[in-house]
């Protein structure tokens, strides 16, 4: 029967992990814009630039 305790612990920690992922995804603004990614995915070659400018703007590299 004690295997159930193990299973419960495992399932709860898994669920907590997923909750953590969800919190991260909300915090990082992935739910702010739900329409553009659907369009962006149609143009399969993603622009070769820093992909997340909403966070910590990086120094800009010069592209040709």
């Amino acid at each position: 029967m004690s295997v159930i305790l193990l299973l419960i612990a495992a399932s709860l920690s898994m669920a907590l992990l997923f909750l953590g992922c969800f919190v991260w995804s909300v915090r990082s603004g992935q739910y702010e814009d739900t329409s553009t990614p659907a369009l962006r995915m149609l143009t399969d070659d993603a622009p070769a630039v820093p992909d997340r400018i909403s966070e910590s703007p990086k120094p800009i590299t010069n592209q040709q």
Partner: protein
Amino acid sequence: MSSAVLPTVAAVAGVDAAPRFVAPAGCFHCGLPCGTRPIVEEGKSFCCHGCATVHGLLHASGLGRFYELNAHPGSQINRPAKREQWAFLDDPAVQGPLLDFTDGQTSRVTIHVPAIHCVACVWLLENLFRLHPGVGGSRVNFGRREVAIAFAPDLPERPGAGCKLQVASSPTCTLQPAPCNRIALSELVALLASIGYEPRLTLGGVERDQADPARRRLHLQVGVAGFAFGNIMLFALPTYFGLDSLSGPMFHRLFGLLSLALALPVLVFSAADYFRSAWLSVRQRVLILDVPIALGLLAIYGQSAFEILTGRGIGYCDSMTGLIFFLLGGKIFQQMTYERLAFDRDYKSFFPLSVTRLRDLGSGIRQPGSGIGSQMPDAGYQMPDAGYQMPDAGCRIPEEERVSLSSLQVGDRLRLRNSELIPADAKLVSGPAFIDYSFVTGEAEPVAKQAGDYLYAGGRQVGGTIELETVKPVSQSYLTSLWNHEAFQKSGHDDLNTLTNRYSRRFTTLVVLVALGAALGWALAGNGPRGVKAFVSVLIVACPCALALAAPFTLGTAQRLLARRKIFVKNTAVLERLASVDSVVLDKTGTLTTAGVGGVNFTAAEAPLTADEEGLVFSLARHSTHPQSVRISETLAGRHFPEPARGFLETAGCGIEGQVQGREIWLGSRAWLESRGVACCQVPARESGAAGSEVWLAIDGRCRGAYVLASSVRPGIAELAQQLVGQAVPTSEARSEPCRSRREEASVSGKLQPPHAGSCSRGRNSGYELTLLSGDNDRDRERFKTLLGARTGLHFNQSPLDKLNHVRHLQQSGRTVMMVGDGLNDAGALKQSDVGVAVVEQAGAFSPASDLILEASQVPRLADLLAFSRSTTRLVRLGFLISAAYNLIGIAIAASGLLSPLVCAVLMPISSASVVAFATGGAHWAARRNGFRAALPASGIRHPASGILEASPA
């Protein structure tokens, strides 16, 4: 200046392009019709040089894929992009609120670009770095029509006035990027404009806040509730199936404690808003639905904790977390936002960010604001006087500078070009002006003004460049004073008085009474413990989750379905108010009529025009940007085009003239032609009451007749009027609904409203009361009388304040008013009315503050919309009835003190699920019945030009 460039481009187009026949396909870049002489490059045809240049630029930069992603993805380039136009953006004071971030090396700016409309736009804007080395990453938010761009800013060495001189001497054309690795903000904006994505920079846009922390919080709350709900259900399932006897008492207790622990964050974090608003409403002595919800949640958690800790059971944590999860889900569903629409705009959104100010170099830089206010209205500072006429003499040349609107002072001299907005009340200094006040007053015809005339803010200059001197600051001008009217001061509608809250007031009172009664009854019978159990059980069972779900899901679904048909409702409370509307007030200009194409008829004075002569007129009219010339040339488009006109001259307020193939063409007002000795004695017969403004034509000094430009009424208006006034109004049962609900509303809210039984019974028999309010003159009176029916009240020459007062008068006589309008002149009435409907030509375009935004093509559907709103309100009531039935059964069992956990656990989800299913299904059914079901093609993404394409006769 920009207005002068366009005709030249067009004229060059006519000469340069080889005269070859091209199939009437649209421009390869923008999809607009190319006319008879398209520009052909690389075997593709373009409508103008702007489009061809952009195409060339994109190909040269390796961005040709833009055209593979979507057919005709571009936007027409209406005017050349000049960096000076945005020079004011390099002023740090202006940049401050615009930039999201800057550290001198990297800056990030988020700008609104209305032209974003398809996949190709997203792709092109996110590949912007290929066009200029100073641009880093860019990211498009399609829903908001915004693009965030990181760039290396080219900061000016000297702030303020110094940088403007520097900018003025820099190369004007941004199409060849400068070989430096930095880019100034003005240059960046010019780059965007040059490829057809001109940003919209307004004062209102700058002051808007970006992120929405409340929405993030709601997402997190749902996440936590869902997490706890799912895990607690795992522990609770054995109990549902009676398997808990197998697992033994040890697990029983463990499961209970785990559930209790998991439910705690849900109660504290996820449900926090319910407790807060319940507490607020109790303190304000109003009962809203959140009160019984909060009571029920506390009762459930308390009872569960008691049972679990004393080892009597595993409590109802599963029901509680599930309930919160569904409630929050309903909240998200209801809180649908249309990111690219703004329902609450104030006057700032209508003003540009900058204006062109004239600076007198000879006398040094004038210090703005230094004592100008005192001498402002006096004659001593009047521009036409000798002291300021020096520019003509040539020694003092006023220099233009773009300044931000906020730094505008009284007494500043401004230069206004074609289609620019007058930002503040001003005096006309030079140039005969031709001011289009249609947005402010509804008057369709532009009015001619002479030097010295007073110009109100909000008008738009049409035609040539004019100069003005501001008389009042922006904040005290006519346009702004409209916003200071008391109608705008009130905090909006009473959103507490929704159906849900009206029902919940009774419901809460009832629940508390029953709970107390049960407790008291058992206590009196000598069974105290059972009384406590009954009291708690009633609160738990009566926790009005089904009641709280009925309205959000019905109205939220309805809102979604309407949005698919380009009808955007601000929030679900508007849908409820819509159902009780019994008076419809319509604006004329822009709402029932379009200022668009068509409706141009030529009435010949003697012999009708030959095709060749029409070609001559077309050749002349296409040189002018005046709206009347544009309409005439659009009507004549496709005629044989002889040659560009020579000696073209436009006299604002009078007409245009020029020579084509050696013939002298005059096109203008009758008075102007007569003043040149043209006898236009024969007044052309007015046909079928279609009155409009007249443009007279003389060829070689002989009057040939007049073009009558009628404002064209949208199709389907007559049917709409019929539906609204009479026949198509649903059954008498349905019509009585709004009356009843209004009485309820009045009685519940305790307002002292006279019992207008008369108006109610009238409403039942004869549909809506229809009124037309127009700021225009009454030359169209007969036409609209036949169109809208004899019983419709027609009021012309209405000022914005008249409209507002008319709406208020209707409301004071006990009516619920829906106002339909489009311009600033309707803004007050829209705000005052119970439901303000703003009509826009294209979703995302400018609209005054309103409750509902309607795309112009949907105006004929207004009657269906009203019927649909009544259906949905009835569905909400039915949903209440269902949940009331559940509650009644539950309360009956609970009050007897016999409620078992199993019954409770089964009853709650079933009641919630059935109400949600009924609400969404019912809304779909009602939408289908009222013809709102069918989805628009192609995921609702539309080419911005397609509206023009459909409407144009070409």
